[in-house]
């Protein structure tokens, strides 16, 4: 029996889109006509070439095989479901869904999974758990002091299994695991809010990952796709007691309306993630505004989420002009 698998992209556009992506990356075909008519093509961006595993990307032997591809019978095939990327002669496929691959300096949100010898293991939705060394956290009582044996014995007083932390990627270990640090007052344990997990690809690197929205909600966009939405805590870095950094206690004055705003922002982020839209502070604000016409308790419905996301995207497009 013959079974054939079809790609979600109309076949006719493949040749065209490959040329276009060449234009985008190579820059040597700039004079190509962009206004080709795309009959029957409903894709937003014609330069995107989606492939499924074992789909032939090209039969041209001049191309080299990159990540996510393999060669069979002199053809380059995809080994993943993803988007074709081309840099000159190198063809690679970027997977649609992947785990977090970090870089040094990334702000990540993670969950402690294990307390080990002088270190915590942290789930950051990467291929391996990241490591937070006892020597890379700020200890209570003085900003810089030597770690003592007593600190090692009471590591659970700082971070316990299940605790959420925000940290920065400091270095890589030999096996590819990340080493994190929380040596700044903006990093540390997370309180007063709720946690959302989205695809890591949806959070882009930008100047700041700590945002205070106008609606009185703080958002931490972890580059690993873990997002923390919490009640606003006024910044007064000098007054912060270092003991407080490791407290498990939420602040007492979270009002029901604060909770509603937090839930609304969280639902906006879920709506954007559901529609695979990049998440940043601007679009969250627009989504929040768009969501105000819906009751909070209806916001978990699919079509309302879709509406909010669409409205937020058009608001961002309007702003750009």
């Amino acid at each position, binding site marked *: 029996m013959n079974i054939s698998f079809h790609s979600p992209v109309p076949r006719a556009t493949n040749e065209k889109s490959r040329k276009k992506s060449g234009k985008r990356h190579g820059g040597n075909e700039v004079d190509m006509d962009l206004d080709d008519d795309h009959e029957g093509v409903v894709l937003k961006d014609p330069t995107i070439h989606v492939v499924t595993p074992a789909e032939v990307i090209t039969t041209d032997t001049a191309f080299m095989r990159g990540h996510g591809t393999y060669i069979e019978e002199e053809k380059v095939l995809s080994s993943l479901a993803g988007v074709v990327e081309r840099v000159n002669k190198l063809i690679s496929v970027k997977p649609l869904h992947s785990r977090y691959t970090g870089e040094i300096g990334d702000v990540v949100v993670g969950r*402690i999974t294990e307390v080990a010898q002088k270190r915590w293991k942290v789930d950051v939705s990467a291929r391996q758990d990241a490591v937070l060394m006892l020597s890379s956290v700020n200890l209570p009582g003085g900003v810089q002091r030597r770690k003592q044996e007593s600190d090692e014995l009471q590591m659970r007083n700082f971070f316990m299994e299940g605790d959420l932390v925000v940290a920065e990627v400091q270095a890589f270990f030999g096996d590819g695991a990340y080493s994190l640090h929380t040596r700044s007052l903006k990093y540390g344990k997370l309180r007063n809010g709720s946690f959302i997990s989205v695809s890591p690809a949806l959070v882009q690197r930008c100047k700041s990952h700590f945002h205070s929205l106008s609606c009185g909600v703080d958002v931490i966009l972890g580059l690993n796709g873990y997002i923390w939405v919490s009640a606003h805590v006024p910044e007064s870095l000098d007054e912060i007691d270092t003991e407080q950094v490791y407290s498990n206690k939420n602040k007492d004055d979270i009002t029901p309306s604060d*909770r509603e705003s937090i839930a609304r922002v969280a*639902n906006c982020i879920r709506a954007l993630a559901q529609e695979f839209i990049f998440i940043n502070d601007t679009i969250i604000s627009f989504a929040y505004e768009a969501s105000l016409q819906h009751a909070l308790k209806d916001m978990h419905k699919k079509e309302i989420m879709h509406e909010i996301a669409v409205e937020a995207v058009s608001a961002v497009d309007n702003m750009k002009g």
Partner: protein
Amino acid sequence: MPSLISPAERDYILKGIECNVRADGRQRPDYREVTIETGVVSQTSGSARVRIAGGTDVLVSVKAEIGPVQVDPETGDGADKGQIVCNVECAPSASQQFEGRGADDLNNELTQMMSRFLSHNTNTPAHKSSSTEAGAPAAPAGPGGINLSKLCIIPGQQCWVLFVDALVMDYGGNLMDAIFMGTRAAIYDTRIPKTEVQDLGDGQFEFEVLDDAEDTDIVEGREDMPICVTLNKVSDHFTILSLE
């Protein structure tokens, strides 16, 4: 693996339930979004697929077959009734805990519970211990609502047997709710062929099943079928289970 949660998160969630604002903005009695499709399996007499946003996915099928009537040896009950045979199976892919034989207990429990609710004929092999069912309304309407007498073709001999099979394809809470919703929807979707009984005299009967696809019977009493709603008690309040 039990999922981890930090003390601060736990406190936030509990206080949120107290304030009637849950993490995804729903209030305590709000249900998650439910999607029901009917007529999804063409080989059955009726089928439905229920999905509850956040994971739960249940496929229920109803197959009508002809079988001999089951008479209760003690009470002599059941001679003029059809039967409903239930079976619930959790797919191993639905949850990690269902792998291997992990789902066996749950399967049995859910199967027994469904049989108890849907058929008041306590003689089907699936549930021997269901005689505890007390205060069942008098026939024809059983606790399951379905009029079993209407499923009988020849009293004392032949009847329709409705095989209700539920397959749990994904598990994300509110499982019983989804199964009962699916069963109700599948029964609503069910069409039973009409039969024509001929009296041959001497207590001999013969019947013919009409294969006219247009002219079929519905399952009578389907509007009285039960629906299940699971509530969880969190501190002092009842709430519909939430996953997030």
